[in-house]
């Protein structure tokens, strides 16, 4: 089993929850209003969406905006903490990574503020 979301209390069938749909690297993912981007991804069965410098997979670690492991690009804004960002219907989420040149993934001249490139994965 993977992470899963429980329906709101008193609405065992999920009635009363407002559905929303975001896209992640172009593919639609469904969630409900109130979830964070990380929550939508986790509930959809994705435990990892970013890569560390070596290319190793990363997902949610601290869950409260401290570790920056869950960074994504939302509607063109890079380096958004997925665990803090409330998902909005229609959000376009792109995964991004921090792989060192030569460790796989696409190369990019777009260097992050801290020196290493942090680039989109599906943008080619």
């Amino acid at each position: 089993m993977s992470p899963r979301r429980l329906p709101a209390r008193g609405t065992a069938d999920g009635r009363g929850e407002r559905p929303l749909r975001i896209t992640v690297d172009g593919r639609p993912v469904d969630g409900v209003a109130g979830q964070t981007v990380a929550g939508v991804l986790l509930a959809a069965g994705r435990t990892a969406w970013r890569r560390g410098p070596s290319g190793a997979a990363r997902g949610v670690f601290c869950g409260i905006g401290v570790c920056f492991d869950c960074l994504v690009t939302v509607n063109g804004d890079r380096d958004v903490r997925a665990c803090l960002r409330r998902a909005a219907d229609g959000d376009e989420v792109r995964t991004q990574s921090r792989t060192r040149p030569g460790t796989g993934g696409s190369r990019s001249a777009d260097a992050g503020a801290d020196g290493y490139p942090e680039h989109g994965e599906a943008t080619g």
Partner: protein
Amino acid sequence: MTRRHVAVTGAGPAGLAAACAALAAGARVTLIDSAEQPGGQYHRMPPEASAGHPGGLRHGRDAFLRRRSRVLTHPRCTWLPETSVWALERTGPADGPPGAGSGAPPRVHLLCGGPADGSGRTRRTLDADALVLATGAHDRVLPFPGWELPGVCTAGAAQALVKGERLVVGDRVVVAGTGPFLLAVAASLLEAGAGVREVLEAGTFPTVGRNWLSRPWELAAQLGKTAELAGSAAALVRHRVPYRLGRTVVEARGDGRVEEVVTARLRPDWSVVDGTERTVPVDALCVGHGFSPRLELPLAAGCALRDTPAGAGAGPFVVVDGEQRTSVPGVFAAGEITGVAGAPAARVEGAVAGWTAAGGDHAVPALRVLRRSRDEGRAFARRLARAHPIGAGWPGWLRQDTVVCRCEETDYGTLCAAFGDAAQAAPRVARLSTRAGLGPCQARVCGPTVAELRARLGAGPAGHGTAAEPPGHTPHRRPLAQPLRLGELAAAPVPFGSPEETPDRSGGPKPPGAADRTTPSGPVAESPEAPSSPTDPSDPTDQR
């Protein structure tokens, strides 16, 4: 009469209590938090639950909701949700002691409105007569092989997801580390219907048991917290989840995500007893080894810190006096940044800080009661620290290739080499040569660990930024307390109105969210004119 203006950063249990008490003392209050709703980590709840729907086992939720509504609907309170304090600017002469001359607290630099980490937030500045810092803490996690695998998260992450989104991290979960918070997290997961395989407390019985069982009458003073812990322990018993002392996870393994963990028995110093390893299949692992107080703002304000003994699970902490004053004039601190004792103790500290910051009468009897309660909270913090120290033997879990800095993937071997070389051992040099702490999290996760390893490897003191070492060396010093975008930095800040005006009447741009404030509906607890007392007598949790 000019009303004092108290700015409170952080709207968790401590900050909300501070706002409440400052309002009761007659001050004007600006309450700031990065979240959409007050409550902090402790009172985190799904958005529809915060609209008033009841929800499960949330200790003191009713009292919290009452206090929240009292503060947010108060005519003298300005609530700034989704607002980050990214810097504090000292107003005193640059070369003098902090705050010298003026007695005013530092200027608060804010990023207002908009979703988290969005672009185009409004830069604003705020000058108050007093500043209450209640920024809280986050989990500390010691590294071990495989801790960077997806599916391994902090105990706090599991708690935040279950409390805030009803999302359970897995169905075969192991919770490991040290401290009573592990019990609370396991209980939340069980209550939400997740499967918890076991809860592993690294501390051994002599340490944990002796310190929890000694002087039980002191625990009675922390009835709220003790009852909460007992409730969590009962949930474990009900679900037949083993709670094992002196055992921990020494490795996480899996292909692209955690699939199994290796647990091992520990000696009292947390060295591994060889031959006691067990492999447990899991789909999630939650870990926590105490807490790191969020010290960016206290350090930016220039507050003195007190170091904690080697091996303490948390710290250093902000030094405060009997009225929660820090060493900087006009700056107060409350809650976990002064010592980790949980929400009830944080509320009491917040009330004392808010009342004093607002210039409240020192002779009111309620303040005496609060101070006594605060002292009991401090005793509880000391008990917690004694019962759940970090054992000195934990680096024995590390291998040369174990990642210590998650952002830069700096491994233990690299750090050992740097700290063993005199030319590289100074903190700044080691940071640059190993890159540990230079990644996006800016050493928030690995900072205390790297400092401790450096001290252990004989390269000098841990460098918490206390008297022994200048604060410039602390891993907690970050010129930007929160990330902001260059465009936002370049924009000229819009100051909030003069002290006699509330910001939303100042004619300047309204911070998003200010318009969302609900208008006062019922009678407010405190008359706007007559100062009352720092506590609401109808709220018994205040006294604990």
